[in-house]
């Protein structure tokens, strides 16, 4: 019990994921700045941002909204993201072998933060937040199917087991999933799904600063917004780690493997950053078309290739 609490709160849970996610957020902002000929923030900036919101800034509650849900949503978002992070990282760090079906649990846990953002936005009673929430719902509907198909494809490729450890074992012996043509075809939609899950351009229409003033999060301030930021930091670590587990032979935490693990995560974040800096924001129906038509098509082609054994 105490051990589980330690896993959840300290390592590899809340504290570790928050700090590592903050670093990845800095990395993302620094690369963005380099692409845009700017200097970029100092290393500690994400932590300053978080602590300022947490400790200094006033928390303002919307006058005519459902306050309970409004306050609960960020907490649950952090909770969902953290549990997903723990479940993904534990088998890879060798602390725990996971349980049968943990992939399915992880899949659902990864959906929780987005759902909480929607609930928080709707309960704030702001029309701009309502627009943001409706966009986020449409976005979830479009990418979630693709994401499920991608995960199922990886399961299909590595021996029909819905357990993280088995997935990692098969990659250990049979080579990484991304090493094959069908693996690459699955990897491309996976990256875009993660981009959408993180709400990065071109899929940031739920926040869309210049259209609806950060949409979903418009009413959040102070501690609540700090928690939302924290959940985003954690997701920025969790999702690339999940991708590494699915496609790139997982992460290993011993010897020279530490370097490879860090490089895998940084590589995925770099890819996300580059996508977000070379595209304008899509409209919501364009995003739906993108996932439903093109990305699902890629996945289906990958399935055929898997059946052929390529």
């Amino acid at each position, binding site marked *: 019990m105490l051990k589980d609490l330690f896993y959840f709160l300290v390592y590899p849970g809340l504290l570790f994921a928050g700090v590592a996610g903050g670093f990845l957020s800095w990395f993302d902002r620094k690369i963005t700045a380099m692409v*845009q000929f*700017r200097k970029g923030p100092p290393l500690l900036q994400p932590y300053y941002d978080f602590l300022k919101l947490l400790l200094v800034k006033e928390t303002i509650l919307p006058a005519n909204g459902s306050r309970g849900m409004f306050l609960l949503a960020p907490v649950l978002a952090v909770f969902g993201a953290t549990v997903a992070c723990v479940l993904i990282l534990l088998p890879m760090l060798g602390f725990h072998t996971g349980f049968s079906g943990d992939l399915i649990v992880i899949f659902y846990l990864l959906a929780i933060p987005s759902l909480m953002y929607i609930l928080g936005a709707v309960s704030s009673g702001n029309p701009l937040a309502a627009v943001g929430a409706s966009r986020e719902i449409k976005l979830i509907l479009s990418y979630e199917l693709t994401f499920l198909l991608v995960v199922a494809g990886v399961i299909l490729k590595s021996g029909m087991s819905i357990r993280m450890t088995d997935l990692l074992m098969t990659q250990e012996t049979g080579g990484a999933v991304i090493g094959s043509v069908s693996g690459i075809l699955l990897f491309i939609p996976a990256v875009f799904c993660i981009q959408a899950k993180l709400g990065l351009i071109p899929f940031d229409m739920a926040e869309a600063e210049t259209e609806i003033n950060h949409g979903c999060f418009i009413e959040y301030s102070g501690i609540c917004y700090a928690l939302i930021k924290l959940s985003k930091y954690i997701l920025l670590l969790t999702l690339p780690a999940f991708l590494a587990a699915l496609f790139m032979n997982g992460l290993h935490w011993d010897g020279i493997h530490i370097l490879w693990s860090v490089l895998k995560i940084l590589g995925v974040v770099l890819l996300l950053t580059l996508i977000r800096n070379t595209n*304008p924001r899509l409209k919501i129906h*364009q995003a739906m078309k993108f996932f439903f038509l093109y990305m699902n098509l890629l996945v289906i082609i990958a399935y055929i290739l898997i059946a052929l054994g390529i």
Partner: protein
Amino acid sequence: MSNTKIIPVGPYHPLQEEPELFKLYCEGEIVKDIKWETGYNHRGIEKLAESKTFDQVFFLVERICGICSTSHPFAFANAMEEIAGVDIPNRAKYIRSIIGELERIHSHLLWVGLAGHFLGYNTVFMWAWKYREPILDLFEMITGNRNSYAMFKVGGVRRDIPMALIPEVRKAMDGFKPKLDLLIGAVMDDPVIHARTKGVGVLTHQDIIQFAAVGPTARASGVDIDVRRDDPYAAYDMVDWKVIVTGEGDVFAKAYVRLLEMVESVSIIEQCLDGLEKEPEGDTEVKVKNIPEGMGTGRAEAPRGEVFHFVVTDGGYGPVRHKIRAPSYVNIATFKKSCIGQTISDATISLAAVDPCYCCTERMAVAVDQRTGNMLYSGEDLLKLSHMKTEEIRKKQ
């Protein structure tokens, strides 16, 4: 009407960092109606101009707008020279055109950057503004200021561009051309930009005529107007250039017109520099001692469209009536056509596509009782209020 939500864009909104208010009446994501309010920042420039001398008015009208700060003095100078009946030396004409075109380049670059930002494409934003920087440095080299250049006066220009500076300007232009090509390529060939801007906020030829829109907004819809060609002033009839017109009328067409206009501007500047080299150095103005009684109109093609100044003089030291019409004031009216029926995402970029400039557009707002129609505050009431406030502040000290 129960489903209709008001999505406010303004008075303070990340879309446009100037005080204005657009109310988008939306059903779901679709904009059903649009209303706008200006008057947050009315400065009474026309009235102020009547209390200033002709030389001071140049500095005043320059401050109407920070981005197209030379187009207003340009139009005012044209109006004054019509009244005084003077013909300025060729060297002054070339210098005026160079300043005007450099301003067009920096204004269009600013718009391209902002349009990118509004689409969430911050890389274009930063790159366009980086390329704008050498243009502002060039301004500083020529006029001493990065903005608000104070170059114009009745009968000529205040500062010469010395012969020694001309190679520097040429060098800056040569350095700018490849960057401009890069930017044009980046915007014209990006499929995602196409997806976001093509067929969005379409204004037909007919709409432009009905709303009397001007500038790149009109030229993107196939309306072939440009004051520089239709009513030549400064050196525009002494150089070879063409008006960029395209027919689609959507946001992409407006971007296309602005990007290609920058290429034309570079060509105009280079030809003006050629002309400048042939004229004797220092011949930059004719002395105008006094302005006779009369009235005159001045037009100039600002980056956003036609600027119109109407000036009445009585033979004294300053204008007795000064009327200004800035291009954004007419262009903003087209939102009624371009935004209704679009989604919020499309409406916001359509709002930005005419490059609206609110400091030109501000008109005085009067608070009226909705039932009786009477003015809530007269000028005297406001004066009384302000005196009361001053008294309060004094008491506190």
